[in-house]
């Protein structure tokens, strides 16, 4: 009986001591910057090591943690960058269009200056004849736009040819490269009159032939030629091209020159048809 009583008293004393120790610990550690003791560290390690493992596993599934979060972030970043790239590409395409439009406007401005002496109708070339013998172009303007046969056709670079046939909404142009084409021209410098002719072989290289060259005249490379105004189709002063070769024949009256046209017929897109008075 006395033994059990003693045990109860000891238990209560131990409990009181434990509570006191806890209070002392609380009191001694509260609100102080301190280094943990080895005992504390040892105790922590029991928790920290498994905690790390659990944390790693859980972090894999946790939005707030590293691996998947990084992938998600990368994906998100990628998405943002992709949309940014798309946006920039769109802007770049717009930029290209703006540049093209700017070039067109510049060409139009140049054309306006160049064509100020003439009343012109602008037209687009829509097709080229599909055979090897002709140099016929089809434009998208016709009778309803005021085009009539024999109107001269030019670009900002120079003479193209003349309108040979007019439809309601389209017209045919025979270019100066066509082998049947022949018209009067003058040398810009010497004002000598010559004949410009199309040639089957030369037409592929945007070249024409000059014949009826005045006796003893030699044209050097770079000499320019323009329309003479004789013949009834082309008005005077339309630029044709420049000399690239002079061919001396046995009979000097048969001398010829090769002229490179100012107009690049391989890239003929927009032309101006001159309304003749």
């Amino acid at each position: 009986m006395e033994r059990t009583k003693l045990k109860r008293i000891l238990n209560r004393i131990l409990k009181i001591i434990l509570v006191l120790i806890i209070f002392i610990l609380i009191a001694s550690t509260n609100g102080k910057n301190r280094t943990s003791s080895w005992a504390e560290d040892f105790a922590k390690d029991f928790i920290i090591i498994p905690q790390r493992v659990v944390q790693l596993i859980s972090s894999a599934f946790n939005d707030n943690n590293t691996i998947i979060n990084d992938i998600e972030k990368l994906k998100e970043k990628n998405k943002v960058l992709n949309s940014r790239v798309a946006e920039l590409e769109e802007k770049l395409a717009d930029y290209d269009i703006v540049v093209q439009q700017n070039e067109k406007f510049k060409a139009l401005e140049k054309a306006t200056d160049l064509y100020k002496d003439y009343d012109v109708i602008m037209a687009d070339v829509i097709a080229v004849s599909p055979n090897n013998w002709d140099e016929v172009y089809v434009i998208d303007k016709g009778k309803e736009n005021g085009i009539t046969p024999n109107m001269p056709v030019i670009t900002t670079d120079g003479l193209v040819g003349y309108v040979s046939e007019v439809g309601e909404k389209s017209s045919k142009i025979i270019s100066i490269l066509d082998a049947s084409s022949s018209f009067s021209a003058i040398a810009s410098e010497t004002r000598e009159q010559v004949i410009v002719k199309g040639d089957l072989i030369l037409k592929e290289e945007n070249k024409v032939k000059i014949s009826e060259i005045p006796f003893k005249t030699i044209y050097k490379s770079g000499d320019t030629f323009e329309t003479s105004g004789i013949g009834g189709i082309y008005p005077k002063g339309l630029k044709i091209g420049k000399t690239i070769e002079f061919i001396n024949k046995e009979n000097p009256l048969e001398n010829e020159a090769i002229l490179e046209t100012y107009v690049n017929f391989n890239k003929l897109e927009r032309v101006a048809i001159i309304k003749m008075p």
Partner: protein
Amino acid sequence: MKKPVVFLITMLITILFLLMQINFLNTLPAFGIISNIGIVLISAIGITAGSNIGGLLGAFYGIVIDAFFSKTLGIFFLLYILVGIISGYLKNNISKDNKMSLALMVVINTLMFELSLCFFTCYLYGTPFNFLFLLKVIIIEELYNIFLTYIFFRPLIYWGEIINRSRDSYYLLH
């Protein structure tokens, strides 16, 4: 296949070939010489479906080329009809089952076509005759057209056979 459907599809094929010539082949010259897919088309159809249909197709193709590009109306009309008729007449002498035969047909037609066109160009428009150019056109265009023949041989012969089978119902062509 019913005759109006065959007729309509044949016209659509012809227009497609025409557009291919104008927009694609015109921009792909070999040494400055362009091919002529119209000759390939009309030769292939003519050799399988006969001279009537070949001629009719040639007429359609030629009149369109004339209307759009020719300086004089009727030259291409005539030449393409000739291509169709010649192909039709040679139908029984040339095997349509191998590419070489059709290539030979295209060679004959191209030669006839370019020589005639040279004649018309020089005679009607006063273009000075240039033998070197004529030779160049014939050689390069022949090779180019043979190449196109090898590409389009199967589908064109196949379509020619379809036209041939539905021929009895072609009341317009009999």
